[in-house]
């Protein structure tokens, strides 16, 4: 790929720095305004553009229902394929939580969002998780936390040590309480699984939830299902939400995916708009029905179009889409995960299908009687 005056997609450091001012500006821009943007800004525009669609709305509603304060569910697993839109969903949920809160307390943080990164250690480092949460909560003096012990009516301080686990855990609980955190979201939560004892991991998470009253939101791939179901004590208070992709064999999904493609096409930041609406099936295949992968494909395509002076060429799709082998590997993993999750997600109770129809009829008759 040749470079022109602008940066390539590979150089994402400027792309991911879409700041709040730019977002506000994009929301107000007219069509002419979008077309008048510089190539770099056009890339940012498409990067920041998100589409409201059926699966996102449905799971969004479910998440907000389960996050209500009086709902007993305290741990939510949002499981889905890579690129299906989990992070986008969590950002919208965060915004909705903030907007729905009447509390003008500036010291409060209704949510905290961290990513459980794989940092190369052989076992799960709870210290790094705790430190991530404290940093996200803008906590002061993280390296100087001290734990206090009370024994037989005598209070003493555990000597301050760098990265002391008890002190960090104590500070975490205090921060979650004092900042009135409602939701703690951990992205890439499958990293919690690596090299770790599932029961021990869930025990620790459950104790954080019990002590602080915070709701936990764990986002990740299908590997998370084992974590969610391994420990019986957690199952009672946990729900698994399956963020589904669009199935190319379903007529309804095809229509909805077509609508998504249409919306992006309508907002394409070039005068020469590629007619994506005529290749919906192929796009669905190339993105495995995941909106995030579709966006990534379109971003690459836009980059190539901008480098060619804004003239569209269908050959861009050859390079914008993932290779066949990669796609096959991803599809196999997704299908295996969907198979594992079948009957295990929120809404997949005994009250489905024929049973639900029968129950509906009987309850309707009882009302009439």
């Amino acid at each position, binding site marked *: 790929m040749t470079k022109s005056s602008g940066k390539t997609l590979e150089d994402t450091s400027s792309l991911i720095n879409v700041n709040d001012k730019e977002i506000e500006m994009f929301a107000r821009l007219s069509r002419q305004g979008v077309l008048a943007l510089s190539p770099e800004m056009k890339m940012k525009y498409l990067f920041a553009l*998100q589409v409201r669609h059926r699966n996102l709305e449905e799971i969004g509603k479910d998440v907000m229902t389960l996050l209500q304060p009086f709902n007993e569910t305290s741990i939510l697993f949002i499981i889905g394929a890579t690129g299906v839109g989990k992070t986008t969903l969590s950002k919208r949920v965060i915004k909705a939580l903030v907007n729905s809160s009447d509390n003008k307390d500036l010291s409060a943080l209704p949510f905290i969002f961290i990513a459980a990164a794989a940092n190369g250690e052989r076992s799960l480092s709870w210290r790094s998780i705790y430190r991530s949460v404290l940093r996200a909560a803008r906590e002061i003096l993280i390296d100087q936390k001290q*734990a206090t012990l009370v024994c037989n009516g005598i209070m003493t301080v555990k000597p301050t040590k760098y990265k002391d686990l008890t002190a960090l855990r104590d500070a975490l609980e205090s921060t979650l309480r004092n900042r009135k955190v409602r939701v703690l979201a951990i992205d890439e939560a499958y990293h919690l699984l690596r090299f770790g004892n599932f029961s021990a991991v869930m025990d620790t998470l459950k104790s954080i939830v019990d002590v602080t009253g915070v709701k936990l939101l764990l986002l990740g791939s299908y590997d998370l299902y084992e974590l969610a179901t391994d420990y019986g004590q957690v199952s009672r208070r946990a729900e698994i939400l399956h963020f589904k992709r669009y199935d190319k064999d379903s007529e309804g999904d095809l229509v909805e995916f077509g609508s998504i493609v249409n919306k992006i096409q309508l907002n394409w930041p070039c005068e020469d708009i590629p007619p994506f609406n005529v290749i919906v099936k192929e796009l669905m295949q190339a993105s495995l029905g995941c909106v995030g992968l579709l966006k990534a494909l379109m971003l690459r395509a836009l980059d190539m179009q901008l480098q060619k002076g804004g003239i569209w060429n269908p050959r861009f799709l050859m390079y914008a889409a993932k290779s066949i082998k990669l796609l096959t590997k991803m599809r196999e993993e997704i299908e295996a995960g969907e198979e594992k999750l079948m009957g295990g997600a929120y809404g997949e109770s005994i009250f489905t299908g024929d049973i639900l129809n029968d129950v509906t009829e009987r309850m309707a008759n009882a009302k009439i009687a």
Partner: protein
Amino acid sequence: MPKSLNVENIFGASDIFFEGAGIPLPHEPSLLFGLEPQGVGTGTCESLRSYVMRLAHEHRVPVLTLVRDVLVEQLKSEKTTWLGRKSNIRSNLLAEKKGFLTMGDVTSALIHALNDATTVSSLKYCTLQPIKEQINPSRLLAEYNRHCRLCYEECIENDKLMYEPLIWNIKCVNVCHIHGVNLNPSECGRPEDQHLPSFKRKLLPGVCSRCGSVGYKCRQYPNKATNYEILKATHVAELIESLPIAADNYSSAKIIKSLGIIISSVAEGKQAIIARHAGIHKSVVHGIMNEHYLPSLDSLLRLCIAGGMSLVSVMKGVPTAVHAPVQYEKIISKLPLKPSCHERRDRLAQAVSSNPPESLTSISRELGLDATTLRRKFPELTDEIISRYRLFITEKSRQRHEEARKVGEAMIDSLVSKGLPLTHRNFQLLLNKPLMPKSVLYKELSQLSQQYR
């Protein structure tokens, strides 16, 4: 209660929306937790000092670290010249309370800095700053920290938060107005060998900073207080309770007007009479009435009690009788008659041959005369006493060192036989208690360890 949630709340009305890569932050949170001070608007309103200690505890950092690394940095932005050395922070802010509870600019700046850092606006009521224009700041605060053990016990039993009320820091209040008992000095009642090492000590209201006893159970139970003291404490509690609502209504002119009414109604219009009833000098009353200086809280209290008026009403300018006038009664202790010259000589002669030898300081205290005067009047006897006592002290010290040396040698032999290194930690483990650096045993062990090496 949060507003009801629907899909429009989550996504807005449009089909498309825009998101950056980062996580949206609703607002930049405050630097410190928005902890609310306890008891604002009541007589047991929390003091600012207690608030800062609790704030540090919630952040799980040492108090001095919070003050030095966070609050002092905030104070820099207030352009105060009070910064001082780090070693001053402990004494200034914690023991002597300067900067935390005074009526001065530093406290004012600290309140402002804490307001910004915590977004809590009611912190000024944790000090007496709201009445700094009406009350003389001199000798306002108690020289040492005090507490009511019964208040702390109640908090522990009812699982309530322990904190230090502002009223306990006021010098003229010596009792707890709730339980009617004397306030205890907040010093540890346990012997020194039961104190915690400094790195294990916790600075928190309700916790003894030496032995860590929660609720100061290391102190004895307090004694019952006199009615006069309880009355004073009640008046001050009412004043503290009124600060959030009525402090803006107080003024020096109103106080003077109220005092004028008291003088005319209770003291036949004579300042000397009210001064006598209040147990203060008539010049103090004269100075207050003629605006030479602001009244001290103690003087004002005594005048109010002598007039039977409520302190709050006096400060509002509308004195209201709440009890019968009570006169101040000072208990004068009867000093024993001083011994005669012969009696002193006999006593000194007795001390020359006493066993163990007595110090001249203790004898002079007993005789009611200072040591210098005794030496001048009885030079030979006092020289004899001094030299005998010096020899005694030297011998005692030598014996202490001797004993410590023997113990030290035994400890070193024990460690060497077990193949353990001669470290401070091992010595402590052997003793099963902390080994303080200033102790005789520590010094002997240091010397012996060096010789051994």
